[in-house]
């Protein structure tokens, strides 16, 4: 399970290092003792049923939510001790893209580039490149509020990649899109992962998406890690991803029910 937790041979720090991360809201434990490592260049699918703690984990990684316990390092920078460097190394697309509806994609991406400390000299090129990679060149001058949901999602992605971050954190990037838009966004993510050499951590519950672009899968349920394996190994036995997950999650549920001593749900 912890096969990926080995240090890198090249001496480069892991892209993401999560160490015993926990988040509690009062009695409720949203994320509990979560640890995993993502190596540079890896594309990892971060999966789990609704309410498993995916968004909470991503919010802690990006510095939006302070963890109750544990810590994480982004490209070697601690999210607490070295917060600004860690944030600079991350591109983040939250579940709802953080857009200003009255702005144009070009002005908006430029604004984000300034926030993320893209040097002035290369900023225009960086903005143009981000817009182009996300297929936004034609609508760059239109107001975001007039754009379709698929285009807005692309603006969200452009915002996440404009400063060419080492790590890309994408929270359900295809939720609520139609099949064609899903295919487009998915192709875009695959392109970013292969041509950009970026580390991507992607939360989703669409298994086809995972099969299409991820190399490794981290599955969590009720805030705990239940599976962390390369995709190739998971489907090696001939079973589909869906079968594997259903099996793992059902077993996990049974175990937790047994641990509590109550009737199984």
């Amino acid at each position, binding site marked *: 399970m912890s096969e990926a937790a080995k240090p890198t041979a090249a001496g480069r720090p892991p892209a993401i290092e999560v160490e015993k991360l926990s988040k509690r809201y009062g009695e409720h434990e949203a994320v509990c003792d979560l640890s995993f490592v993502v190596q540079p260049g890896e594309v990892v699918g971060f999966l789990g049923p609704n309410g498993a703690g995916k968004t909470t984990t991503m*919010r802690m990684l990006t510095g939006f939510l*302070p963890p109750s316990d544990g810590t994480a390092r982004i490209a070697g920078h601690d999210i607490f001790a070295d917060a600004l460097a860690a944030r600079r190394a991350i591109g983040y697309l939250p579940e709802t893209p953080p*857009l*200003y509806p*009255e702005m144009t994609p070009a*002005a908006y991406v430029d604004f*984000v580039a*300034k*926030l993320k400390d893209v040097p002035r000299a290369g900023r225009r090129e960086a903005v143009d490149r981000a817009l182009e990679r996300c297929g936004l060149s034609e609508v760059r001058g239109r107001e975001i509020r007039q754009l379709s949901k698929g285009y807005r999602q692309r603006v969200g992605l452009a*915002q996440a990649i404009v400063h060419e971050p080492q790590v890309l954190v994408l929270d359900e990037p295809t939720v609520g899109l139609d099949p064609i838009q899903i295919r487009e966004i998915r192709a875009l993510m695959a392109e970013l992962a292969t041509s950009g050499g970026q580390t991507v951590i992607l939360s989703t519950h669409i298994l086809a998406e995972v099969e299409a672009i991820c190399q490794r899968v981290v599955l969590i349920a009720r805030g705990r890690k239940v599976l962390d394996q390369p995709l190739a190994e998971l489907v090696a036995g001939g079973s589909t991803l869906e079968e594997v997950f259903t099996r793992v999650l059902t077993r996990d549920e049974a175990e937790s029910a047994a641990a509590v001593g109550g009737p199984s749900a």
Partner: protein
Amino acid sequence: MRHTLTIASRELRSLFVSPVAYVVLTLWSVIAGTFFLASLIGFQEQQIQLQQYQMLDRLEQMNLNDQLIEPFIGSMWVIVLFLLPAVTMGLVASEKANGTEELLLTSPLSIWDIVLGKFLAGAGFVAVMTAIVAFFPALLFLYGEPEVGKTLSGLLSLLLVSITYVAVGVFGSSVTRNQLIAFVLTLVLLVVIGMMLPFIVDITMAGSGLGRDSAIAQVVAWMATGSHVDRMLQGLIDTSDLAYFVVSSGVFLLLSKTVIESARWR
């Protein structure tokens, strides 16, 4: 600092494409025009009256600053109390409602950048409001000879009051994601600070054993805006009055920063 300006300029641009900004600026201009006209007519009537009654010594004392500009600007700052909350209500609340708060808080900047950026944007907006008001006394310079120093000091007081109230607005906007709540909260705070504090002192101090000269009464009276503005309207620029604007802005900005920061820990 760079990030502060980035946030401020984005906010200002968004403010000026929002209908709220234009509704406020239109109302503000109409009210300013009406008040100025009323002050002008009042000035004229007073002059005629004094001439009729042959009160030449009083007639001699009449001047554009004391009888026209001062009451005009003095009534405009009260209007700020009611209009400004509409401008500031969205400053931070809309970031929360839009989800853009998540972008700002995951970017390499400090919370002070956000708070000061919003504050600066609001300050830029009230500078425009003050400029609109300044247009009317400027007209008087074409036809008469008001004192430049006194007029500028009056306009400065209006600008400083408005900027201080922007800080209150930033705070009102940072405690909620709902712009209506932010509006009401800011309005209540401004009405208390701007109008009610002197009465509160009177009522509570009269009932208790403490006199009106007690330390608490004086502190609370100092917190009220009125006396500080009045002195500046009369052309007296005192460090203690300037300190009032700086301290109260600082307090509300610090509160805003604390509120935004603590919201993440819940």
